[in-house]
């Protein structure tokens, strides 16, 4: 059974992911052996990705920070229970996504705050200048408003649809990896992704290419 799972994981995961997963397994074994500091390597490696997922699910930077820390604490506490049926990053993603979803169910009416700083690459697209001119606003102000608008559109999606589109579009996971994280079939992932995109397109119709 373990052999079948390992083979299926190898078939599903890309070669880079496989190398990554093997390196993670070694670190996990170190942590289990008592080298607690080795866990920091996993934190540094995955904190940005976990934070990005949780931030796009909650649209709140404070909550995203807390939930990311909680996910790492939970992973650290239960690292002995990590059986190796899936790769470490899938297991960690599952912990993070489940924690975020539980938080969202408990705090449905929480307000959100966009991150003020963004990386440089998003300031250059031509369409951003055009839309800013059309709106008669400065580019930075328009970019902030646009982020706010995108967060609002994300929050209108259901938690499941939001999770799928975040994992696929923001973190770049494959359908199979999302299915493993969300514990559903790939067909379900595709279906949710399709409906999430349709809903976003309908909501952002005035901004999009006609």
């Amino acid at each position, binding site marked *: 059974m373990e052999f079948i799972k390992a083979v299926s994981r190898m078939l599903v995961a890309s070669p880079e992911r496989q190398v990554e997963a093997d390196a993670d397994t070694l670190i996990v074994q170190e942590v289990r052996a008592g080298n607690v500091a080795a866990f920091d390597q996993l934190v540094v490696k995955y904190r940005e990705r976990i934070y990005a997922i949780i931030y796009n699910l909650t649209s709140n930077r404070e909550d995203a920070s807390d939930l990311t820390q909680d996910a790492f604490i939970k992973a650290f506490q239960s690292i002995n229970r990590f059986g190796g049926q899936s790769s470490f990053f899938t297991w960690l993603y599952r912990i993070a996504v489940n924690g975020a979803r539980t938080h969202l169910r408990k705090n449905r009416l929480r307000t959100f705050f966009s*991150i003020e700083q963004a990386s440089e690459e998003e300031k250059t697209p031509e369409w951003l200048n055009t839309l800013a001119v059309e709106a008669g606003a400065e580019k930075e102000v328009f970019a902030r408003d646009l*982020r706010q608008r995108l967060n609002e559109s994300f929050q209108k999606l259901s938690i499941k649809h939001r999770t799928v589109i975040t994992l696929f579009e923001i973190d770049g996971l494959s359908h199979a990896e999302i299915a493993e994280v969300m514990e559903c079939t790939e067909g379900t992932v595709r279906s949710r992704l399709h409906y999430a995109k349709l809903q976003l397109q309908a909501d952002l119709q005035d901004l999009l*290419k006609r």
Partner: protein
Amino acid sequence: MGFAPQQPPPRPTLEELLQFKRAERPAPEFWAEFDRGLRKKQLAALMRHPQGWARIRPLFIHSLRWVVPATAAAAVALVVVQIPLSTASRSTPMEVASLPVRSAPASVAPGADIQALLATTNAAHQSVVQAASAGTVAASAEPVGRATQVASVSQPDEHSLPWSATTLPHGFETSFRPTETFVVQPASRETRRPRSSWNSRFNEMVQVISAEQSTDRLLQLASFSLPAVTDPASTVAPADSGLAAYASNTRAARAPADRDFRDLDTRIGVSGSSLSIKF
């Protein structure tokens, strides 16, 4: 004068908007704060001792891992053992000592007393019911001629239900068909199905009740005095009797009496030297 085609202003696709959102990242100093917070939480988690229920919960959950499957396995084993036992006890063959059957339609010789025939049927029915309620049946009804019914069951029915005190003993089935006479006949032991459900018990009870009702109907019919001549006109009240005449002329008032007489006429017939009663 030619016009250059006007290019629409560039607009983003959904994928480009999502890419824009993907680029949304916190500042590098954020991660220093994040690491400090994580370190604090990690230490707190290491120092925290579980209290109360949280302390025994792991033990409880660990024990559940074994208790739940063991209980389920025991329940399944109990059911598996119980089913053959109950089936065996129910399907134990019973001894039917003798049971002459009257399967032919009831016929009465000319001049025979119809009351005697009814008494015979009633006695047979009573004996069957008594035998069933007693559990051990050793009943005999020795009425007139061939209508003899003797039943003997060696083993009492251990699975009788409280409400099934009047069920028939094993080996008996009571059947009534609309055009036949009352027949009590034993079912053959070989073809008898073991009663293994409450539903079959209920069906048997219903059969006994229907047998009782049919016997009562037989008694009612027999006690009814046949008119010498059935004259429909005699059932109509005189026309000049006011309100009573109006009531008797209505279909509701007249129909039951007519139907009773017609029913009697069609159910009881004399052909040759025999009297037949249809149900």
